[in-house]
């Protein structure tokens, strides 16, 4: 492993985010606050409790997941798309580093950034509702795995995209609907049986459920199933990246 190169890539990516540090911090604070005002206060006043947890506290893990997913995908996809688009990728491709070192640099930076934003959102949420974390270690593990997995997915999208439209397409058409339908704002046993079954096909359900379990010990599916599913997604993402590199897909002609 060429540590100096990986460190350089990682820090350069982090520095790029730092140039827009204000909007990086403002956006999670603002969106979390909005969700709390709209869902926590407005709807929460009608729905008092879900599974023994106040509605405001119930939606916290889902909101953090929502932020983590969207930020991971957008950071990572932009991070690799931008040098491809501007042509500066030539330097990375001609450097004495392996593809996996490139991944560690780019995906590591994207995941770090979304983790930082996730923590900021958690702190913001605390201003609105008191919540507890029953299994902090598992919570951190879920956060980490999700950030890495979806940063990998973003990386893949950034390599696949041939224009800014495509870069937006997958997040818009796939990630956002899945997260909204992923049990962030409701427990899936509030749905009719048929929709419960359909929902179980949504991978985000497992993430939100497992993450919520690490907070309150309640979950839609067993936390072990959640963990297994995340590891499955991670494995799939790694396999896809490996395929991209083996074929040189969209990086080298």
């Amino acid at each position, binding site marked *: 492993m*060429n540590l*100096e*190169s990986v*460190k*350089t*890539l990682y*820090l*350069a990516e982090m*520095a*790029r985010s730092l*140039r827009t540090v204000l909007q990086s911090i403002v956006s999670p604070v603002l969106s979390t606050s909005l969700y709390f005002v709209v869902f926590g206060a407005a709807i929460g006043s009608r729905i008092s409790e879900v599974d023994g947890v106040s509605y405001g506290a119930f939606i916290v893990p889902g909101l953090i997941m929502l932020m983590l997913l969207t930020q991971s995908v957008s950071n990572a996809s932009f991070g690799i798309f*931008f*040098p491809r688009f*501007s*042509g*500066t990728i*030539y*330097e*990375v*491709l*001609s*450097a*004495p*580093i*392996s593809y996996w070192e490139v991944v560690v640099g780019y995906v590591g930076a994207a995941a770090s950034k979304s983790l930082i934003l996730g923590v900021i959102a958690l702190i913001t949420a605390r201003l609105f509702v008191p919540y507890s974390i029953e299994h902090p270690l598992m919570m951190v593990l879920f956060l980490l795995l999700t950030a890495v997995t979806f940063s990998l997915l973003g990386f893949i999208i950034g390599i696949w995209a041939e224009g800014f439209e495509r870069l937006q397409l997958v997040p818009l058409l796939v990630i956002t609907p899945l997260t909204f339908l992923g049990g962030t704002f409701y427990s899936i046993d509030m749905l009719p049986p048929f929709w419960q079954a359909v929902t179980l096909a949504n991978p985000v359900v497992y993430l939100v459920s497992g993450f919520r379990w690490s907070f309150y010990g309640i979950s839609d599916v067993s936390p072990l199933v959640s963990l297994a599913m995340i590891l499955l997604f991670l494995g799939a993402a790694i396999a896809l990246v490996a395929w991209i590199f083996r074929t*040189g897909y969209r990086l*080298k*002609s």
Partner: protein
Amino acid sequence: MIRVEGLGKTFAGGFEALCDIDLEIRRGEIFALLGPNGAGKTTLISVICGLVNPSRGRVLVDGYDNVRQFREARARIGLVPQELTNDAFIKVWDSVRFSRGLFGKPPDPAHIEKVLRSLSLWEKRNNRMITLSGGMKRRVLIAKALAHEPEILFLDEPTAGVDVALRRDMWEVVRQLRNSGVTIILTTHYIEEAEEMADRIGVIRSGELVLVEDKQALMQKLGRKELTIHLRDPLHAVPQRLSGHGLTLTEEGHALVYTYDAEAGEDDGTGIAELLADLEGPASPSRTCTLARAPWRRSSSAW
């Protein structure tokens, strides 16, 4: 220093950009790759630097295979691309420092300062790239390529878009680099530039290396006022395209003799540049490697 063996590149659409290139670059020389637009200069450089996968053949850099031992091979190479590509908002200093780190070298501000000064960029070190002129941006790309102290430097059309004064400066920088032991491969469209700069010149046309010649030998032969071009396949008559050059066919169609008038030289002097341009000719679109190989040999004895 670099050995290219039987290198071929066919792009995904089936376009054959490089045909069986064999080339040896010597340690410490300045090698000019001369050829018209679309000849394959950038493609050849890209394959050597690992930006494009070769379809056939291989490249050894200082003895290391550039695919299987890419770390050793690439660590020795600095590349200045033809296109001015950069992150508009990054500062010059950060950009050059990034390049060094990317190649796995520990930070060395003194070296980066030296590089920036040698390229007259020191005053601009805190400028963002977007505030620089085109010529300055090109020099930043050179600085980035030199940041990791490469033994080999590729310059893809270094003087494109550079004014005459700066061009002289740039040639001077290149010479200094050569004097410090760096092997330099540059591409150009102009034989004058190749003559001015290079120790050896390779002419590439439609993906084929049609000639590799020592500049000194070339000039000496030019001094004899007679240039003999040996042909691989014999010709019956001087081709139409070359009729304006006063060529004669000898050795039963196996050689073309070009006699030029050194005294009459108005603009170009020898007319060699025009002759080469016509020899290169327009690329034939449906060419394949084996069928329509250029009729002249590519060994240095060909002249």
